[in-house]
């Protein structure tokens, strides 16, 4: 089903305003100034999507020549947090790394960070090239388009700023659409949105219900933390990792604005855990999903069973696992950021026991 514009659907309480995103703001030489940092995703033609979580918007940055440093690829950097902090004139404790994305063309790494921990923290986008050059991308010199994320306005416009804030947890671009998973600080439901790129309007979001097999109920009250687009039997799907940790597939064609749909829970990967990042890769003729987690390591999951796996409908008690099989990758610990560097390697930012974060290339398992 085609996605429909929000204007036909949005019904707001209290003030009756229709949530239509403002027209794209295209500026030739005066670039965006971000309010906050957030996830990254590469789109077509060296466009880098940046979720400006504090600004409740997504910026599509046209990197142009900035997509590549002097050397293709990405070098490993020990203590990347300390290194970035030193370049930005502060201490590693003042640096928060939001996301890592590899350019499909230059294979340089782009890292979204915040400098500072206060309300005035400054978002910074950095590029690491194959010769260890770490450069700040001067985004204010780049062309961009942007789209605001719908936010229900406060009932009382005279009150101070609307305290509701949305946080984008992950984004992915596929076939002219940017998919966006997000949370709010006032509701607990997961929200998946899609927007056509080039930007027109953001839709109202599809509330997604899943069978949480550890729980035994259908629920909307669980946030999506990471997802990837993936074709199953010729149909575009999203594979999503939820808190505590169902793995769920949705057909993209089912994502209808304003609708509630049921995803198919293809695995229950364990409780007390938050998935962080996932990528799909091919090895020896087989596709695998590689997923990093807060407390259950990095999982390697063959995708061969995704299409045929019947949805889990029975509770999985005691924090156990069920559904498609997976293995936990030895030796990969503390992985906080993950992306594919090339056909055989992933690039990770992993924190060791001393708290040091290293930018490291690892062979795909």
């Amino acid at each position, binding site marked *: 089903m085609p996605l*429909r514009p929000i204007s*036909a*659907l949005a*019904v707001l*309480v*209290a*003030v*009756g305003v229709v949530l239509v995103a403002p027209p794209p703001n295209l500026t030739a030489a005066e670039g965006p100034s971000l309010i906050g940092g957030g996830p990254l995703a590469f789109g077509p033609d060296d466009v880098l999507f940046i979720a400006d979580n504090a600004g409740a918007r997504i910026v599509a940055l046209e990197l142009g020549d900035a997509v590549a440093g002097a050397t293709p690829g990405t070098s490993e950097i020990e203590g990347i947090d300390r*290194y970035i902090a030193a*370049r*930005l*004139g*502060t*201490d590693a404790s*003042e640096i928060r790394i939001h996301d890592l994305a590899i350019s499909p063309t230059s294979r340089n790494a782009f890292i979204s960070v915040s400098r500072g*921990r*206060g*309300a005035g*923290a*400054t978002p910074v986008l950095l590029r690491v090239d194959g010769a260890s050059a770490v450069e*700040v991308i001067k985004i204010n010199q780049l062309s961009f388009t942007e789209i605001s994320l719908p936010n*229900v*306005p*406060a*009932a*009382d416009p*005279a*009150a*101070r700023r609307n*305290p*509701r804030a949305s*946080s984008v*947890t992950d984004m992915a671009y596929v076939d002219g659409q940017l998919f966006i998973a997000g949370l709010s600080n*006032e*509701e*607990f439901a997961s929200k998946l949105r899609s927007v056509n790129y080039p930007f027109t309007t953001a839709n*109202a979001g599809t509330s997604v*219900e899943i069978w949480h097999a*550890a*729980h035994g*109920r*259908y629920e909307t*009250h*669980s946030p999506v*933390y990471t997802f990837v687009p993936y074709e199953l039997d010729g149909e575009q799907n999203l594979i999503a990792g939820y*808190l*505590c940790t169902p793995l769920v597939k949705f057909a993209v064609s*089912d994502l*209808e604005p*304003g*609708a*509630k*749909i*049921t995803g198919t829970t293809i695995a229950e990967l364990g*409780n*007390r855990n*938050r998935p962080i990042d996932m990528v799909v890769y091919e090895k020896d003729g087989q596709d695998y999903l590689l997923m990093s987690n*807060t407390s259950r390591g990095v999982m390697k999951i063959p995708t061969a069973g995704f299409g045929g796996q019947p949805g889990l409908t029975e509770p999985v*008690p005691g*924090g156990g696992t069920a559904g498609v099989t997976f293995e936990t990758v030895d030796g990969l610990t503390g992985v906080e950021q993950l992306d594919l560097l090339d056909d055989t390697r992933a690039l990770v930012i992993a924190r060791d026991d001393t708290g040091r974060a290293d930018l490291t290339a690892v062979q795909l398992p």
Partner: protein
Amino acid sequence: MARSGKLRASAPAVRHHPLRDQARHVAITACGLGWVLATGCGSDGPPPLPPVEIQLAGSGDSAGVELLGLSPAELGALGDARLSDDVWSQLLRVTVVPPDKADASDLPPVLGSYTVEDDRVRFTPMFPFDPGREYAVRFDVAHLPGREPAPKQPAPVVDVVSLPRPPVEPTTIVERVYPSGDQIPENQLRLYLHFSAPMSDVDGLEYLSLRDNRGQPVEDPFLPLGLEFWDPDHRRYTVFFDPGRIKQGLGTNERLGQALDAGQTYTLVVDPAWPDAEGNPLQAPFEKPFKIGAADTTPLDSDTWRLRVPSAGSTERLVVSFPEPLDHALMLRTIGVEFQDGEAVLGRVETGSWETRWTLTPNTPWQAGRYALIAGTTLEDLAGNRMNEAFEIDLLERVDEATAGEASEVEELAAADIVRIEFEVQ
């Protein structure tokens, strides 16, 4: 003008640092001329070190580092040389001094721009210097353009600069916690902490604990969402109880049991070390006790709401009373009033009576006519129950209806996301 690496008065609150003293010592040894370095070391030694001075210039966000004492010829050569940032940073290198003063020789220079002005070179950092942080500044004359090569060059001049750190004056307090009442259900979903001033972007869970009636901390009561749920002003922090400890059947609940037990009293404890946006701790610790009632799994029912309708021509409050406390943030955001012409009624919205009451005081007098109270179905009670939808209810049937729908049914579903309660003002 001083003729040494000594800082001038424009850089207040600078402390001695071993780096600086060591560098001066090396310089003195190389030349044997004490602090005044202008005269060089004689014809057989290295070319003389210019009489330079390093100083912090400007204040606050516009602070930078200046190098004074180069000759007009040297400054002219620098201005003409169009040095790359790499070469500039070899000549005048600014690096962060780690808080623990650990070896920082492997640290890269701070990013910034270099300009040559009338009588000085200025380094302006790309991001403002942090107040209170020390920055090492090293001038290495060997990289000065046109400098005569020599087997031995004077050792670099190193100094340390820092902006004064504002005094630690804790003034921020926890103003309110919602729910504001002293009783919450066993399956309470979230808490809101309101601070009197913007807070730092840190993981608040490190500063929050829940203690049982024996004063023992409850293990992992809150959800480690990994995103800091601040409002845009960083004054309100949202805490979610771990649904694994609320919902029946999730593993954490089986292992740890419910975080809250009905009939018991728990105390939310806020550690005053929680830094505000200025990096200062809170003025005082904060505690709020809660008595725990039975779990609430009943959906909201708008038929139970009671309205006290004001009279036409007045600006009296419209009062809506609920049989139970509702979520404070959602009350403020998802409830409103519109007039018969569809226009929203603007005014002051307040909650009261431990969030069992919502009031609207209009900016302009009520008109005689039909009004509607409008509430979004995203409105929740303390346990996350919504209109016609309990937090734990099985929604399979409704999901099937929604996904089977054609476009028109989807629109109806969207229209059904609000409830309207009409009333007449006379």
